[in-house]
């Protein structure tokens, strides 16, 4: 089971949020900028038209016989746009003396330098924009300054501005949408190398501890390099523990071999019955300890390999033939007939070393416990989706006590007194079988004898 991963935040979500906030701010800014520029441009164009209109009136002012004649040109008002939309006012004054137009429309006085001044004001309850132009005029005694003020209501202007507003709102909003889309794409592509790395690491087999070599973005380099160095260390310590298992076996077994060989030689020379008995017991004790050491190491090895299972296709019948061949001398020693029964062609996925170890343990047990001149039959059968390896003997079988679980560590049947064993054999077998998704069953045959069945899923 993979340990639980604590999740806090998401880089992608964070990235998207930040980009969206940025996009929203920019969109609002864009909206205001566009609106203010539009307002300014509209104002300027209105001012220009008002000024042009006032200029046209001024240009038409003529002095005839010392009198000012002003013929209001039609164009002066038509250029102000659709008259039905807007109301246009004007006032003409000479030296502040009202001549024509709307008397209450007062000109805006600037500091006097520029001949044109513009302004906004309330006039008859409406906001208007006015432009005032002055021109000196020579009338003899009445010489002075002719002042023309043209004003226009701002309804049309306001409508135009509202249109601009809407447009800039739309521009801002589409800008926001576009940026959001880009943010999502950017976030996805920014996190893609991470997903790719995660996928490539989780796709690996449990024993695959090679460093990650695919190129990664610079930001991920520290992560990948510490991952690589972690795997390096793991590989090293795995190799060390494997080495340790082998080394321990060597250290324990070689001195035991010396003692056992010496004891056997001694037994051949000793004549006195009580001395013979002592040496015999010594040999038994040595056998017991070497078998236990072997099985403890097997147990460690099996645990180690089962944790790092790398399944390969195994030809079970071929494996059985090899094992039976190699165990034959052992069975012959006890005059036990070890035979291969039915071998139905079948393949399973697993670790060959573990499967071999398990099957060897089961056959070994059968040879050991089946008694004088017994028979052991090994067969491989296909049962639907499963492959069964069956080891049968004609010995005393398993003890009847249903309470006793022989698969537990160091558990031994009650009817095996006098036979050397560690009680780890079936535990190891069970461990191997379960690591391969199979089951171990042991039972007694009706006609007598034990029957051990290992079932594996076939492949």
């Amino acid at each position, binding site marked *: 089971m993979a340990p639980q991963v604590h999740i806090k935040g998401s880089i992608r979500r964070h990235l998207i949020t930040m980009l969206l906030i940025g996009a929203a701010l920019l969109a609002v800014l864009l909206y205001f900028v566009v609106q203010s520029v539009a307002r300014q441009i509209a104002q300027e164009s209105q001012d220009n038209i008002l000024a042009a209109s006032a200029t046209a009136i001024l240009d038409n002012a003529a002095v005839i016989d010392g009198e000012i004649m002003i013929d209001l040109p039609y164009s002066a008002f038509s250029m102000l746009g659709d008259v039905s939309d807007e109301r246009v006012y004007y006032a003409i004054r000479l030296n502040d003396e009202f001549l024509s137009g709307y008397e209450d429309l007062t000109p805006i006085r600037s500091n006097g330098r520029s001949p044109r001044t513009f302004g906004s004001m309330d006039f008859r309850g409406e906001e208007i924009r006015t432009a005032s132009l002055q021109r000196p005029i020579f009338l003899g005694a009445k010489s002075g300054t002719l002042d023309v003020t043209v004003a226009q209501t701002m309804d049309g202007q306001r409508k135009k501005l509202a249109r601009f507003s809407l447009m800039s709102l739309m521009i801002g909003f589409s800008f926001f949408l576009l940026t959001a889309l880009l943010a999502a794409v950017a976030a996805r592509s920014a996190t893609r190398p991470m997903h790719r790395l995660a996928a490539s690491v989780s796709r690996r087999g449990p024993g695959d501890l090679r460093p990650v070599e695919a190129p990664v973005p610079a930001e991920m380099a520290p992560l990948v390099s510490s991952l690589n160095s972690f795997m390096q260390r793991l590989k090293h310590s795995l190799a060390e523990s494997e080495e340790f*298992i082998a080394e321990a*076996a060597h250290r324990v077994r070689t001195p035991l*071999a*010396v003692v056992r060989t*010496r004891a*056997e*030689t001694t037994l051949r020379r000793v004549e006195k019955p009580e001395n013979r008995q002592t040496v015999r017991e010594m040999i038994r004790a*040595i056998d017991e300890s070497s078998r236990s050491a072997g099985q403890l190491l097997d147990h460690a090895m099996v645990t180690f390999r089962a944790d790092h299972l790398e399944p390969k296709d195994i030809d079970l019948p071929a494996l059985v033939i090899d094992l039976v061949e190699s165990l034959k*001398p052992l069975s012959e020693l006890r005059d036990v007939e070890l035979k291969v029964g039915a071998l139905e062609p079948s393949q399973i996925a697993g670790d060959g070393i573990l499967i071999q170890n398990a099957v*060897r343990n089961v056959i070994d047990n059968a040879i050991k416990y089946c008694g004088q001149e017994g028979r052991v039959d090994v067969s491989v059968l296909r049962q639907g989706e499963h492959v069964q390896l069956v080891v049968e003997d004609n010995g005393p079988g398993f003890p009847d006590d249903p309470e006793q679980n022989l698969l537990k560590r160091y558990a031994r049947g009650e009817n095996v007194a006098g036979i050397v064993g560690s009680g780890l054999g079936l535990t190891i077998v069970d461990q191997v079988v379960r690591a391969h998704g199979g089951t171990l069953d042991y039972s007694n045959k009706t006609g007598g004898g034990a029957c051990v069945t290992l079932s594996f899923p076939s492949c």
Partner: protein
Amino acid sequence: MRFLLIEDNVELGRAIVERLSLDGHVVDQAESLADARDHCATADYDLILLDIMLPDGDGRTFLAEHRARENATPVIVLTARSEVSDRVGVLDLGADDYIVKPFDFAEFEARCRAVLRRRGGVAGNRVTRGDLTFDTLAGTLHVGGDDIQLRNRELRLFEIFVNSPGQIFSKSKLVDRLFSYDEDVSENAIEVYVGRLRKHLTRSSANIVTVRGLGYKLEV
């Protein structure tokens, strides 16, 4: 038989040599791969016993060389490792068999016998005593024109008698050599096997006789 034992542990080597000598075998001991190569170059062996971890290299290197030289002498690997991959590895490299230390000499002999049988035997695996011929490898007894196939324990028991005709063996000694030490058998079990051998020998002039209070011996 003539063995070459390649084992760097001096004590274990000496113990094995001593034990094999008891059965009348000749054993040369090499403590390194270099030693072993010298021995192989100067003498012919019936069987080579090879340890894996040696001071000047891996026993598997020797094995590969040995096979490359097309030397037909069978090799049994002695390994202290329990890991099966090791065993599989040496068989792939051309070892005839392997045995895990510490080993039971009965099992060891059984493996030697099986290996030599597969290889077609060695000179002198036939022993003639009086009117009977005994093939120690095949386990056959040739008496009066008949071949009798002995079972393993009968074979080993008969081998003990045949190798030392006239010598008296006590039941207790025979039990030790016939049964593995983890089996609880009474000395009377020997009587069964002696009985069977006697039945096989009815047509021969040789016989296994009981020496009251002492044991059995083969009379030719």
